């Protein structure tokens, strides 16, 4: 059984490919998949008929007692035969329903097959979690299928509505299922039902009601009924399959499945009877008024679903027998009718019964098939619908629902009158001239394959009636699991004899035909008793209220000022942890046993404080930036004194880099920072800030004092050498012990670099190397720069460019800087590579190495300008970033290849000629990834905030607003 489900899944994945290469005819082959399911269930029928069951499955989540378990008993067999049989025919039908030019067909095919598989899993599931998962899968696939015409607003809205309602119902059902499963002590559906009658109490009743809510929402019963007619925006095969044969039956199935266990629960029968009875009547009334054939069928389906659940929920043997019979009959006739409407829609171009005329003569086969199906729906002998409706009347005469049997019988008879009425309206409207004034509808003859499915299903309704003795044993097998409510058990028979039930049937048919007569129908349509009660209005009001509430909350909390938001956050910090800190008396634990660790630390700290306070007061932009840089260097000294050489090295490098980058941008801004705040406001800010500072320091000290456990890093040194094969514990921590963290942090860097580039380069992802090879080739004159040494020729080019196109800004360059650059650039690069390789055993590593290489680029850029940067690093920053992350990821995955875990380090060691003993540690590759990403980040920042800003500044034109015309400016620059 699981194999079949897997086949469905595989077919769903394969379907798009097939449809793309073979066109719509691929559906012919795809139909084999549900057909195989049909055949499989047929072969297992003998077992099921003997009262046995077929099971399959494996353990899924042992800790929760959740297994992937499927089970085929009589009820599942009936439902799965319907799902696979109708499914196969619908897939066949799709091969002709869609025009070859229909859009989105590959995706549609895949989703349809996936839906068929999910539906099969739903009716087979024997584990409530599997049941829920497949339940929601059908919801999601239904969403995709209903929204097939995504360009139509109605489609999108209908799909959204169906998804919201059925998914909400599904979640409610999950709660109920878990409650029931916990009460029963098992997650097996069969087990829960088996112990169901012995369970009781408020929790079980609540669980039952929650499950019923799920079933009712899926089967479109009041108050959830409105999603089904809306979902008619779906293509017709979808309506035939999902909204007639399969998905909406899931609710009926669940009620049938649980009825043996829980029908006697006090919450069960009232909910079922009221919702289902009301739905049957309302659906019938609305259906009998429709002029759109498809909507007529949709409302009719709502009515019939009410009928089915009313019977299914009775919890008596006879009602259950009638219910499951009706499920079969309904699946046959309703899918036949939907498919017929699809043919009419395609071939006549309309499905409005006021525009259709004469189809009975021109499409006799279709007319006969559809009329048979409609007659079955109306319950006319000798069709299957008649047999099951007789059974339903009998079931109520057999006191289903005990004292309420008479009332509900009246409801059912009235519902049947309406059913006859809309069935007749369907036939008259579609195939005769009764409702129309048009002389002749245009008609394109449908092909045999197109007609095949509806005709086959229509004939099935005819054949199944007389064949009821053959079908009945399977149905009875399920019904016998329920207690009988009447001495003589009900039998489904073609000719029941002149009983009360037969009299009611005749009455319903006669009254229904009268009601269907156009003049009566027209008068009845004028009366709209339920016009005011429209659930979709409530639905929209609900959606509106949620939206409005969200707006209100947003408007209240998001005031649009960053300072307000920050003050709120900081206020919470003080009011929450701060108050707790003082109240808990934890401050008493803080022990400060020394003033400082070393005299040098005092010096560094004083420098740090001095530069920070000065920076906070500085008016000049550049001064403030330099002062904060001073703080950074002071902190680097503190790190170095604290036994953290790697951190100190990185801090110093980053501080240098930050200084350069900040200056790159701020040189475009005015020299002074605009002062917006009055002295009083500044004092207020200080009063907010000071408690935060004190609080954070106290929190840190308390945390340190409260430490009781051994630090996790205690074992890092031995692990670093043992597993990571490195002596530098910090580096091994980065590339091995906590490499997952590093991967996350690398991703942050990548995102930041991308963000920078996209804020500066408005029309591209990133800057191509400025003044690359292309530009060099184009250089019109001057053999000097092109044939030069390859070192620092950028400047010459730039000078050349300035001669050709004088810009407003002239970059002054110093000879000294150029000479120094020539000297230090190779040195820095070598040192950065050394850091990279030595980092595993000595201070350094990918971060420090990458930053150093980045600084080398900064030097080239500062000395030679943007063209020089292009010469120094003729690659895209994005390439570096991507390669880096790829390397880091691959080296992580390589751990798996060598039989270890992800990111596990492996060591290659051996004697190499010339080099001697060589030890290669795989985490070096990871570190190279880190290196590349850091270089990529620096390059991206330099390209964006350095070179691109230069270019914008150099570009002739209105220099006061350069980025307003970035595209035009760039074209000019290229010209």
């Amino acid at each position: 059984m699981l194999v079949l489900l897997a086949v469905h899944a595989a077919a769903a994945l394969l379907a798009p490919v097939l449809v793309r290469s073979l066109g719509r005819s691929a559906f012919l082959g795809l139909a084999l998949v549900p057909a195989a399911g049909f055949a499989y269930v047929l072969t297992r029928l003998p077992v099921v008929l003997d009262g046995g069951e077929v099971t399959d499955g494996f353990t899924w989540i042992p800790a929760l007692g959740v297994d992937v378990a499927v089970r085929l008993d009589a009820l599942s067999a009936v439902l799965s035969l319907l799902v696979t049989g109708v499914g196969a025919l619908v897939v066949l039908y799709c091969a002709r329903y869609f025009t070859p030019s229909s859009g989105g067909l590959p995706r549609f095919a895949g989703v349809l097959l996936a839906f068929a598989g999910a539906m099969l899993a739903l009716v087979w599931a024997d584990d409530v979690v599997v049941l829920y998962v497949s339940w929601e899968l059908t919801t999601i696939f239904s969403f995709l299928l209903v929204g097939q015409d995504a360009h139509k607003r109605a489609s999108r809205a209908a799909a959204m509505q169906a998804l919201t309602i059925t998914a909400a119902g599904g979640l409610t059902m999950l709660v109920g299922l878990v409650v029931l499963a916990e009460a029963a002590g098992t997650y097996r559906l069969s087990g829960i039902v088996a112990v169901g009658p012995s369970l009781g109490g408020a929790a079980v009743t609540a669980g039952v009601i929650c499950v019923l809510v799920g079933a009712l929402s899926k089967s479109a019963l009041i108050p959830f009924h409105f999603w089904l007619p809306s979902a008619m925006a779906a293509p017709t095969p979808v309506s035939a399959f999902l909204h007639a044969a399969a998905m909406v039956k899931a609710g009926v199935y669940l009620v049938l499945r649980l009825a043996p266990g829980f029908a006697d629960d006090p919450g069960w029968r009232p909910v079922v009877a009221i919702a289902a009875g009301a739905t049957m009547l309302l659906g019938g009334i609305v259906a009998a008024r429709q002029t759109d054939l498809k909507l007529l069928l949709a409302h009719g389906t709502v009515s019939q679903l009410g009928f089915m659940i009313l019977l299914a929920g009775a919890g008596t043997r006879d009602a259950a027998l009638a219910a499951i019979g009706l499920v079969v009959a309904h699946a046959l006739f309703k899918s036949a009718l939907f498919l017929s409407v699809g043919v009419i829609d395609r071939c006549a171009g309309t499905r409005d019964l006021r525009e259709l005329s004469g189809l009975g003569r021109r499409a006799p086969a279709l007319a006969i098939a559809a009329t048979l199906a409609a007659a079955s729906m109306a319950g006319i002998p000798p069709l299957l619908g008649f047999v099951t409706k007789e059974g339903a009347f009998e079931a109520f005469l057999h006191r289903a629902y005990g004292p309420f049997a008479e009332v509900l019988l009246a409801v059912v008879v009235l519902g049947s009158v309406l059913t006859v009425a809309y069935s007749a309206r369907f036939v008259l409207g579609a195939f005769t001239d009764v409702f129309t004034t048009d002389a002749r509808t245009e008609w394109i003859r449908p092909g045999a394959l197109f007609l095949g499915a509806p005709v086959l299903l229509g004939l099935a309704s005819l054949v199944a009636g007389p064949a009821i003795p053959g079908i009945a044993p399977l149905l009875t097998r399920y019904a016998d699991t329920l207690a009988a409510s009447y001495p003589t058990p009900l039998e489904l028979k073609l000719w029941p004899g002149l009983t009360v039930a037969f009299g009611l049937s005749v009455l319903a048919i006669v009254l229904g035909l009268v009601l269907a007569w156009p003049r009566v129908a027209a008068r009845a349509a004028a009366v709209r008793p339920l016009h005011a009660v429209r659930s979709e209005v409530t639905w929209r009001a609900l959606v509106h209220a949620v939206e409005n509430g969200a707006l209100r909350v947003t408007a209240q909390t998001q005031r649009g000022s960053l300072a307000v938001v920050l003050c709120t956050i900081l206020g919470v910090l003080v009011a929450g942890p701060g108050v707790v800190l003082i109240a808990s008396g934890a401050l008493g634990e803080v022990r400060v046993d020394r003033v400082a660790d070393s005299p040098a630390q005092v010096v560094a700290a004083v420098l740090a404080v001095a530069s920070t306070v000065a920076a906070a007061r500085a008016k000049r932009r550049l001064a403030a930036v330099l002062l904060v840089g001073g703080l950074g260097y002071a902190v680097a000294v503190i790190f170095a004194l604290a036994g953290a050489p790697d951190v100190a090295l990185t801090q110093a490098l980053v501080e240098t880099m930050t200084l350069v980058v900040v200056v790159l941008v701020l040189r475009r801004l005015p020299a002074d920072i605009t002062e917006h705040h009055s002295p009083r406001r500044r004092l207020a800010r200080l009063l907010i800030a000071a408690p935060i500072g004190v609080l954070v320091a106290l929190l840190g000290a308390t945390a340190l004092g409260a430490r009781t456990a051994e630090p996790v890093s205690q074992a890092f040194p031995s692990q670093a050498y043992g597993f990571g094969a490195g002596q530098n514990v910090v580096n091994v921590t980065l590339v091995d012990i906590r490499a997952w963290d590093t991967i996350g942090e690398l991703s942050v860097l990548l995102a930041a670099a991308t963000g920078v580039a996209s804020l500066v380069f408005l029309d591209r992802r990133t800057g191509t190397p400025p003044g690359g090879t292309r530009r060099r080739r184009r250089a019109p004159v001057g053999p000097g720069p092109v044939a030069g040494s390859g070192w620092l020729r950028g400047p010459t080019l730039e000078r050349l460019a300035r001669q050709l196109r004088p810009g407003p800004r002239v970059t002054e360059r110093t000879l000294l800087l150029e000479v120094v650059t020539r000297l230090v650039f190779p040195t820095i690069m070598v040192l950065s590579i050394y850091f990279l390789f030595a980092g595993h055993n000595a201070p350094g590593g990918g971060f420090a190495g990458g930053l150093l290489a980045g600084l080398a680029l900064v030097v080239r850029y500062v000395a030679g300008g943007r063209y020089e940067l292009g010469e120094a690093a003729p690659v895209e920053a994005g390439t570096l970033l991507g390669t880096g992350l790829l390397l880091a990821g691959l080296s992580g995955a390589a751990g798996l290849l060598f039989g270890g875990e992800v990111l596990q380090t492996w060591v290659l060691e051996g004697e190499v000629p010339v080099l001697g003993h060589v030890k290669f540690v795989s985490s070096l590759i990871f570190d190279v990834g880190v290196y590349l990403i850091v270089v990529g980040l620096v390059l991206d920042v330099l390209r964006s905030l350095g070179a691109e800003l230069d270019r914008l500044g150099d570009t002739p034109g209105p220099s006061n607003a350069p980025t307003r015309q970035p595209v035009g400016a760039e074209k000019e620059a290229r010209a």
Partner: protein
Amino acid sequence: MSSSFLLLALIAILYTCGVYLLLDRSLTRVLLGVLVLGNATNLLVISAGGPFGAAALVGRAPESAMSDALVQALVLTAIVITLGVAAFLLSIIHRTWSLDREDDLTVDTEDRSVRRRLARDEQIDEDEFDTTGCEQTSDTDDEHTDRASRADAAGAQA
């Protein structure tokens, strides 16, 4: 475990100055505030690692005398990320400057528009939830309607 007074005082002062700068309206000062807060936090994390010792290099010092390597690794990446964040803030400053000729934090227009919409009782895309209209939607009222394609369909079946 205990901590040194000097570091605690330094962290307190840095946090105070950082928050003070962060609350300014000038984006440059906000950036400086972020940088100061970044340094302060790194100090806090390093000092949370316990007493300082020798560099965490195996073989050069006894393991018990080493500083905590974990906090160092955390701070090391945090430093580099601060660089990325600073660059990102700088590009925001650049954008703000080139669009408005100022480097100020202005009131968030998006938040303002939410309040405006509320005042006018508007909804976000209300029509998306209107399914009443789709009852009139036929399968054939889209691009497949035209007779040509239907003829095409019927012809293909024949």
